[in-house]
């Protein structure tokens, strides 16, 4: 039992959990047969069993059963279920398309009366949901802590759960990026999706094969970069925003040494063995070049045809999409995509090298 708990604690550490989720998701796109009913039953049974027997562990129970964390259990199970349900239907439709049949949605094209066929479904949904909400409300009182006291800040202080993805981002990026620029980009990016995505297929039915790239990017962003961060932010981030495994006690006094270094330290101090230059622009020149390369040069390189890139860089070519989408859509899409990927990139740089800032101008609060 202890061994199992330690293993879970280890596997839910940010590095391992994030990597496992990413790899798992990517594998599930390659081996789509795992989106079957059988796998779903087994996965659900095992996961639910482990999750609910874990309630016997006092540390686990303390966090999961906290009233305002109860919705996160719903998030966990509902998002998992509906992801499976969407992918399952997509994979089933892909089989039909491969066999030359119509997709399921196309087979049921006949028009039916909205009264009663739809109105009754809606009524039933309303009744079930209304009863469910009542039961939930009677069984579980809404949380109310001590009266507000501006002099006593709790540790950890957490934003409402749906913003914990952003709060988790604060570990890796400064507030102007994590709290302002990235949320703006998320909203703008979501709104831009229909104008960037020119693939006419997969409109109005579940499919995976006909929209692989779109679905892969969206699921990665939604499941790994949003929902996973919300869940780990709720259950696994304790005092001082330190990480705690699900069976670990939230020790207020645990101190984790942070040795954060900047790109400028790597270059000047560790690389050249000399002190940091006093001119900030000179000090940060390498970081500035790296960032400009990432947002300015990389998209242009990726637009080039494979053969025109040096051999070791051929894999980054997105020339196919550049041809299909045209320059405006391509550049908007790629820059949003790179902005999204900048989060995991920074995460891994932090975990691997303790890197804090690529560009650091603390004088004017401009740190990347």
């Amino acid at each position, binding site marked *: 039992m202890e061994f199992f708990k330690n293993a879970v604690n280890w596997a839910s550490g940010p590095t391992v959990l994030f990597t496992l989720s990413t790899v798992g998701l990517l594998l599930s796109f390659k081996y789509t047969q795992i989106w079957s009913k059988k796998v779903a039953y087994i996965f659900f049974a095992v996961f639910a069993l482990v999750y609910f027997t874990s309630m016997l562990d006092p540390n686990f129970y303390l966090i999961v059963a906290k009233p305002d964390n109860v919705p996160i259990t719903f998030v966990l199970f509902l998002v998992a279920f509906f992801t499976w349900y969407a992918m399952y239907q997509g994979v089933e439709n892909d089989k039909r398309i491969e066999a030359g049949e119509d997709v399921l949605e196309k087979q049921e094209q006949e028009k039916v009366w909205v009264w009663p066929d739809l109105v009754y479904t809606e009524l039933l949904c*309303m009744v079930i949901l209304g009863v469910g909400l009542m039961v939930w409300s009677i069984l579980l009182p809404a949380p109310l802590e001590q009266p507000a006291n501006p002099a006593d800040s709790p540790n950890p202080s957490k934003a409402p759960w749906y913003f914990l993805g952003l709060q988790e981002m604060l570990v890796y990026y400064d507030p102007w990026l994590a709290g302002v620029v990235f949320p703006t980009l998320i909203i703008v990016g979501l709104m831009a999706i229909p104008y960037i995505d020119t693939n006419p297929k997969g409109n109005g039915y579940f499919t995976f094969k006909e929209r692989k790239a779109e679905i892969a990017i969206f699921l990665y962003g939604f499941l790994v970069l949003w929902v996973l961060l919300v869940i780990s932010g709720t259950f696994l981030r304790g005092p001082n925003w330190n990480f705690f495994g699900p069976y670990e006690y939230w020790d207020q006094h645990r101190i984790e040494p942070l040795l954060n270094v900047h790109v400028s330290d790597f270059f000047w101090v560790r690389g050249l063995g000399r002190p940091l230059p006093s001119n900030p622009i000179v000090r940060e020149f390498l970081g500035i070049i790296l960032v400009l390369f990432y947002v300015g040069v990389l998209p242009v390189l990726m637009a080039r045809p494979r053969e025109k890139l040096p051999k070791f860089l051929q894999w980054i070519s997105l020339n196919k999409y550049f041809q299909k989408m045209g320059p405006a859509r391509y550049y908007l899409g790629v820059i949003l995509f790179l902005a999204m990927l900048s989060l995991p990139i920074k995460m891994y740089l932090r975990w691997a090298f303790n890197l804090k800032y690529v560009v650091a101008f603390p004088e004017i609060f401009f740190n990347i």
Partner: protein
Amino acid sequence: MEKVWSAISGAWDATTESQVWKSVFRHGAVTSNRNRVLVMMSNVFLHLHPVKSRKAGIKLRYTWCMGGITFFLFLVLTFTGLLLMFYYRPTVQYAYSDIIDLGEHVPLGVMRELHRWGAHAMVITVWLHMFRVFMTGSYKPPREFNWGIGVILLVLTLLLSFTGYLLPWDQLAIWAITVGSNMARATPLLGTEGPLTAALKLGEINLVNSGNDARFALLGARSVGENTLLRFYVLHCVGLPLAAAVLMAVHFWRVRKDGGISGPM
């Protein structure tokens, strides 16, 4: 038994044939196609729907009813929120004790529970609705614009939940809002600790300071306090719900105008 039954059915017939009933429901029993049309057309709530719909589009396995559930939750929240407004005063002095009273002294004291759990549920169902719309490619032409409206509705839902989070005025509330609103301090140009803000100077005077930056605009003060509570209350009860209601009207109308629930061409 038979007598009872015939009495009931007699009473039912008398009711549905009365002038009152007929003045409310203009159509007869919904047994003919003509009346299936009329029931949808003569009811202001039902007429949001089309009269007929593609079979595949109205299946639960396709829509998951998530959009409908979200709207239903919005109605539940409006109703319970209205009841809560009878008892709750948005001042530092009363807010917390009013919340206590709501649970302890108000009959049927689950209104706050319904409101809070319903609000959490609404955030989840909005996400799942968007997720479904994405996975069925329903944002593709001709529905691009309505997807954009949906994104704004998502933001409004989160803001509604965020502003409501402060109102109980407990430790959970003020510190969550403090953490959330601290980020506004870092807005480029508009926050005191934002990049480039220091460049906005007139001589020696900083144009943006903690008394006029983006965070101050959000909180109405330098820290979460009385003004913030009032500001969030007004936004939560009036401003944001009105904006959401207007956009929902556009959203539903466009669902119809863009060809109803999406389906394969």
